[in-house]
Structures are given as C-alpha cells and as structure tokens.
C-alpha cells in the first residue's frame, strides 16, 4: 500500500513542503532566525571548532596552549593505535546498549503498560517516584547511587554482605543508575504513545479470543513502533550526553572499567592536559550521535507506509 498523494511523506517533514510552494518564505525564515542564530553561534560553531582542534596540538596549558598549529593526521594516528580508545568505544557500546536500548525501553514500556491497568493511587505514586528520579539533577542522582552501591549502602545491605558492589561491578551499577535516571522520560513518551493506540483495535483483538499478551505483541507493539524507535533514539542520545552521572560516580574507574568515550575525552582534555586529543575523542562522540540519527531515519522511514490509525492495517 503506497501512501496517497498529499499524504505526509514522513511525520518529521513539514506540512507545508507537500504543497509545492517554491518561493522563499521570508516570514518563515525570520521566525526561524533566532533559533538558527543561537544554534549556529553557540552550538554548531563550537562543535565545528572542536573538530578543528582535534587535529592540532593544542594543550590546556603549556607551550602549545596559545600557540598551537595544525598537525595533520598525527592525532588520528594516535587514536587508531590507542588501545584505550577501542576499549572505551566498546564500553560506550555496552553502556548505550544495556542501559539505553534494553534497560530503559523495557522498563519504560513495562511501566507504561502496568500504569495503564493499575489502581489509580498506585499509578500516581509510582509515576511520581519514577518521574522524580528522572528529574533529579545528575549530580544528585550520582550521589544517591554512589551511596546506594558502595560498602554499607542500601544495596550492599540488601545483598547481605559488606561488599563494595560499585567497585566490584562498576559497569553494571553505572548502567543501572542510568536506567534509573532516564526511565521516567521513557515512561512518559511510551505512555503517550500507548494512549494513541485506538481502543477499537484492541477490542477487535480481544473479540477474536487473543490473550492480553498476544494483543500486546501483535497489535499494540507494531502500532507503537514509531514511538518506540523514537524513544530508543532519544534515550540513546540523552545517555550519550549524560556526562556528570558517571563522572561523579566513578570518574571512569576503577581502572578504566567505566571509561566511556565522553569520560575519556574529558580525562584527556582536562586531566592530562591534552586538549587536542580530548577534542578528537569528543568528535568521535559526535560522529556516533550522527550515526544514530541516521540509523533512526532509515529505520523509521519504512514504518510510515501502511499504518493508518483508522484501523486499516497494511
């Protein structure tokens, strides 16, 4: 089933574009100007400059702090041969995969679904707790989880021993902390998405004798696919940008166990004074974010064709 003419090509595309207006929209450009200026000057500009810094020999302090120059491929060469970089890349993948993709989506979805059917007071209370966890400033969340998982903290008391769970399983704890602090957001997004699943569709499924789980898996999930994909992307990006949490909990340690790329980049730039190399590592993070955004576009494109909320499934 192909989309009819005049149908929106993709939900993120502007509704005006389909009309085929050709002339330059001065008003539109003017309206967009404040946002554009701000983003270019304070966001894209610095990021672009960071890309340039990545191939120089700038240091935070020292002879090349002010008088630095382009060094060609030298930093890239270091990057490729840096055992710690590849390790960091792997850790970042684990962190994003485990906490962003799996953890938050599953827990967020579980919460959204459970909340729909639970008693009102429980829904309000748990909803509040989870959203508060998301709203807590990262530094507070980091402190909480540090106290929670260190020796004598709640987690170790619960596990019966006096062990230092944070230092024994640093990556696990850090992923759990990230899930804890982003689940609220996921829950909100997925709850909203659940609400748009038409009741008639679910009724139809139940009429045909399908169990709750079957209804969920074959009807609800596919309809919610765009929302889920969007959520995964957003949470991945948010996790990637969540520097403070890990920095304050473990600063990348113990050893290099939780040294994901944003942390490693900061460490190189601000602890070891190698601003250029830190910038280069940061550039890799930007590239990762770009890859995710691109993948997202690819994945959500085919889902557009064929789902019409009026109940006609392709």
């Amino acid at each position, binding site marked *: 089933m192909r989309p009819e003419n005049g*149908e929106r090509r993709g*939900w993120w*595309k*502007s*509704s*005006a574009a389909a*009309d085929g207006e050709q002339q330059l929209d001065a*008003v*539109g*450009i003017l*309206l967009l100007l*404040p*946002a554009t200026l*701000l983003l270019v000057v304070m*966001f894209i500009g*610095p*990021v672009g*400059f*960071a890309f340039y810094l990545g191939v120089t020999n700038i240091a935070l302090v020292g002879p090349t702090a002010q008088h630095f120059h382009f060094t060609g491929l030298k930093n890239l060469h270091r990057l490729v041969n840096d055992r710690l970089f590849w390790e960091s890349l792997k850790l970042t993948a684990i962190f994003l995969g485990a906490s962003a993709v799996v953890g938050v989506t599953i827990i967020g979805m579980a919460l959204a679904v459970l*909340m*729909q*059917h639970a008693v*009102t007071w*429980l829904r309000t209370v*748990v909803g509040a*707790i989870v959203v508060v*966890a998301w709203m*807590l*400033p990262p*530094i507070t969340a980091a*402190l909480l*989880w*540090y*106290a929670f998982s260190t*020796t004598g903290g*709640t*987690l170790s*008391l619960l596990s019966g021993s006096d062990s230092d769970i944070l230092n024994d399983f640093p990556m696990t704890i850090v992923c759990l902390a990230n899930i804890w602090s982003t*689940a609220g*957001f996921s829950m909100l997004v997925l709850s909203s*998405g659940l*609400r*748009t699943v038409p009741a008639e569709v679910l009724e139809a499924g139940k009429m045909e004798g399908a169990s709750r789980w079957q209804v969920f898996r074959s009807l609800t999930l596919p309809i919610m696919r*765009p*929302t889920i994909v969007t959520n995964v992307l*957003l949470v991945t990006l948010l996790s*990637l940008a969540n*520097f403070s949490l890990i920095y304050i909990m473990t600063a990348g340690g113990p050893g290099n166990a939780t040294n994901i790329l*944003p942390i490693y980049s900061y460490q190189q730039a601000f602890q070891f004074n190698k601003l250029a190399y*830190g*910038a280069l590592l*940061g550039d890799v*993070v*930007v590239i990762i*974010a770009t890859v995710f*955004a*691109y993948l997202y576009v690819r994945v959500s494109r085919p889902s557009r064709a064929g789902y*019409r*909320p*009026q109940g006609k499934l392709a």
Partner: protein
Amino acid sequence: MIQSASAVADGNAGGPPIADVKKTREWFVTNGLLAIIGLAFLAPMLWLALAAVDANAGWALQLPHFTLANLIAVTRGDYLQALLNTLEISLVATGVSTIAGVFGGYALSRRNIPLSDELMVGVLFLTGIPVAIMIVPVFEVFAKYDLLSLVPTGVFLGVTSLPFALWLIKTAIDAVPKELEEAATIERANILQVILHVTVPVALPGIFAAAIYSFINAWGAFLPPLVLISDPSQATGPLKIYGLIGSAAVRYGDIAAFSIVYSLPVVVLYILMSRPFSGGFSMGGAVKG
C-alpha cells in the same frame, strides 16, 4: 485535545467477565509488579532522606543521629544564594529555549523552509552531543566578550536544550489542525497573533514539555557553570554540591540535605505541571494522519 491518563486506563475494564479468579490474579500481578518497580526506584533515595537528618552522616546507610541542623544550614547563606542563582540561570535558559523554540518550531512546521526535513534530523542529532567538547571554545568567546556570568551561561544552557525543544514543539504544532489557523487568518489576524492566540494554546502540552525539559536541563547543569562561572557568589547548586564533595573535610549530612533542598523545586514543578504537560510527550504528530 489533552488526554488525561485516567481516561484511557479503563480501556480494558469493559471486557467480558471471565473467571474472577483470573482477573484477580491479573490484578495482583499488575499491581504487584508495579509496586515492586516503584520500590526499586525508591530504594536509592533512602540514603538521601536518612543522611539529611543525620548528625554523623557518612556514605553508609545507617539509622540517623537525628538532627535538623543540616537542613536548616542549607537553606541560608551561600546555599540559599546558590539556589537563587540556579533559579535565575534556569529561568533564562527556559525562556531562551522556549521562545526560540516556539517561533522556530512553528516555522519548521508550517512554513516552507528549504531543507527543513534535513534540518530536523540535524537538529535531532545535536541532542546527543556532550557539552564537554564545546565548552573550551565557548569559554574563549565568553571570556573575550566579558560574558562569564550567570545570564550568558543561562543563554548557553538554553541553547543546549534548544534542539530537543525545537523537536518537541514542532511535533506538537504539527498536530494542531490547520483549519484553526486558517480561520484566524480569514479574520485578518497577523502571523504573530495566529501563533500566540491560536497555535500556542492548542500546542501547549508540547510547549510545556519543552519548557520543563529545558528547565530541568538547566537546573541540573554541571559542566557549563563549572567552566563558565568564576564568581563564587554566582555559583549554582551543582557547583556547591561538587565543592562539598571535594572539600578537605567532607560533611555528608550537608551534602544530603542540600541535595534534597536543591532537588525539591524540580519535584514541585512536576507536581504542579503534571496534568498540562503529560500529554506533551506524545509523539502525537507521528501517528495521527
């Protein structure tokens, strides 16, 4: 229109009465699971509550040597100043992000902007860029123009949340029926009036969501204020907490107490705003035809 959570909750209650046993079992499973998850989320917050009222607080979870001194101490003096500073920076950030976001989101949604699709995706991936990599160039520019203070830092924080805000607002505006705007235009309203009196009210949940997001983002911001603010009287909450952790004599009770006081405003904000903005996270434009 705005849907409240309770409206849909009854969606499945109208099914045929199967065995009551099965329903009761489902009820227990659902509510039980939810309660367990709720407790799991509550668990880490325990330390905060206990240590804040503990005179001999440490990292360990222990029964407090009860005192209110910590909580009292962190609501005055430097701490109060830090809270006010955080409020100032967050309001500026929210203002910048929301206003630029509303106009920009409207333009991207309703106007004919060249390459707007690519722009949107570009805007989206900006969300994932960690602040750390651009903080040094930003510092240099701010230093050059004497902008190393609260308000410019607030503007910067607003800009860092602008991509996501733009995205949320544009999505919300997409869902506003065009007929409403057309009706206003027929009555000869200019574009600003259309935006402010027609589009914004209908898209309000999404705009609120964007504003809340920007506020939370700025409230919790750590690295930008750390780098960009030098004047200690302009320190924000996270900087204060960070200073407390790193000081020569660590006072855990104060850290916990101040963390609570510092986190309270965002929590209050949620409680106040939960109705209007809960619908705003709907990727509604995505699914509606």
